């Protein structure tokens, strides 16, 4: 039997109902993206009087630019580290809370809080904690002989933004992993327990494989998050420095476009960034999904 369908007698009405959402999508997503693609093929004079079509010149320049390739590499390091760190910790917290019975609601609520913190605030918070002269963490690190200085040390700066970005994302991953763990039937765990599998082994041989759809989903979400949504964190903590050590692709788009006013190159970079994310998502769906169980 067919599912019940609502039919409109008025041919215009469906379009009218869709119009607000379509308008928002067109004005705020499609149009700017199209503008970016268009201006990535153009060069504008410094005063904005004339634009010249230059074809793929911006792209050729970018791909030959060691600064850009360097940023690409840093972004890869950043994205992989943030994704791994936030997913592993999110899963660890979820596994811990899943074993609780009475207090789990309290812990869940507390663990979700960081997600409500704005990225800029999260960045500033960690910037304070890691502040070279007044921060708490450098004070303790000094006792272990580590002189923390993310203003001068590129590695330190990278670690700082990784921690700040991952910290915010743990909550999100935690929630999804917890929901995933709680949907694993209790009887499966009991069957495994009778089959001689201890809690740790049960986690790795039963829970984790059954979580693979969740893991796959979170992987895509996290990579996209680090690619795009981490701009405020970088901006508030390191400003891309020192010596471009934390200039990720999205931060470079901003720097070259809004600070350097090189709109053509900036547009080309954002188009490349879009392509990278599209490619990653495609690869993930195509190859990772095949190994997803259940």
């Amino acid at each position, binding site marked *: 039997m067919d599912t019940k369908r609502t039919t409109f007698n008025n041919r215009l009405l469906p379009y009218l109902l869709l119009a607000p959402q379509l308008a928002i999508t067109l004005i705020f997503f499609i149009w700017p993206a199209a503008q970016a693609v268009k201006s990535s093929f153009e060069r504008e004079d410094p005063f904005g009087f004339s634009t010249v079509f230059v074809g793929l010149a911006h792209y050729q320049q970018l791909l030959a630019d060691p600064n850009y390739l360097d940023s690409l590499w840093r972004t890869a390091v950043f994205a992989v580290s943030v994704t791994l760190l936030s997913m592993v910790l999110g899963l660890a917290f979820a596994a811990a809370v899943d074993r609780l019975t009475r207090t789990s609601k309290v812990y869940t609520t507390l663990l979700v809080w960081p997600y409500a913190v704005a990225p800029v605030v999260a960045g500033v918070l960690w910037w304070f904690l890691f502040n070279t002269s007044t921060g708490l963490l450098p004070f303790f690190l000094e006792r272990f002989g580590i002189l923390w200085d993310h203003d001068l040390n590129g590695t330190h700066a990278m670690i700082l933004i990784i921690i700040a970005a991952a910290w915010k994302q743990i909550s999100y991953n935690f929630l999804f992993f917890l929901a995933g763990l709680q949907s694993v039937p209790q009887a499966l765990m009991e069957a*495994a*327990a*009778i*089959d*001689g599998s201890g809690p740790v*082994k049960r986690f790795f041989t039963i829970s984790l494989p*059954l979580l693979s759809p969740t893991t796959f989903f979170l992987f895509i979400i996290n990579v996209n998050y680090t690619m795009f949504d981490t701009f405020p964190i970088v901006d508030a903590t390191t400003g891309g420095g020192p010596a471009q050590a934390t200039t990720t692709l999205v931060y470079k788009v901003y720097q070259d476009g809004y600070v350097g006013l090189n709109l053509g190159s900036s547009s080309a970079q954002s188009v490349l960034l879009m392509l990278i994310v599209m490619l990653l998502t495609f690869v993930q769906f195509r190859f990772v999904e095949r190994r997803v169980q259940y």
Partner: protein
Amino acid sequence: MAGIHIAEVSKVYAGGVKAVNSVSIDIADGEFIVLVGPSGCGKSTLLRMVAGLETISGGEVKIADRVVNNVEPADRDIAMVFQNYALYPHMTVYNNLAYGLKNRGTPKAEIDARVTEAARMLEITQYLDRKPRALSGGQRQRVAMGRAIVRKPAAFLFDEPLSNLDAKLRVSMRGEIKRLQRRLGTTSIYVTHDQLEAMTLADRLVVLNGGRIEQIGAPLEVYHAPASTFVASFIGSPAMNLVKGELHGDKLAIGPSVIGLNGFAPASGTVTVGVRAEDIRIARADEEALPFRLEYAEELGAQRLIHGTVGDQQITAAVSPELELAPEMQIAIDASRLHFFAVDTGKRLPGNVPAEAKLAPVEPVA
């Protein structure tokens, strides 16, 4: 192979709810015990305590003469078949069967031999490479059984394993479980709320109600000599008729009618009288009879159930389908077929026990 001894086992949940109340059962090596009762009677809780999935609040569980109260489920040498099968969805049938053996560090060659053997026995050899989701309900049930038998445990625990199957499959799987258990000779505890399943599978059945044992006995013993009105109404289909009666010496009054008991009266005063539907027959002209007002009839094929009243009490009788029905009929019951229960406690009153209850149990065919 081992016996299981359950001694005064109780389960008290937080908040003081007593799910199982001082239950004792001695299960011999190789015996097939069925725990039966309505939902909430504590049968599953009891089974889970034997399995080690539920802590034991009081009493002692012994498997093969070893107290296992504080032993992990994995170390109790038991295998369990769950109601929803609990197969690992991400593993093939082969790995589902092999998982428990791998965890115990069984050599690979032996795992292979045991899985192959179990698969052959259950006729699931051609499905070994499939995932559970690609199997039908009956096949999943077999895999769940296979997972239990590969381990060669001291005891099988079944938690309503057939309740997710359709009626026809349930009957055939029931037969297979019985056949397999006879063949392997493994001590088994089987939980069900289905009295027919309990009757057909059990060597002995344990009727539970409200966390307590109502009766333990061979299926026919329980059927022919129920220890209480609860057992009488729970075991057997249709349920035993239970009516109010009054004993005067050797006479029994049901409503306005009186019948003689030929010396079978156990007491005097008000009692609950039980009578199986198949023990009621149409009265001959020359005997004491009860007037039966027919309300409706149910056809079962081999017999016909007629429902109606004697006085103001409901009675169901099983009669031959050839019998001609009339709105008013005269029914008779042999006094030796009557069961008497105390009105206040519902317990069976001492007295006659039908001869069938003393029949020797059917010898198991290997």
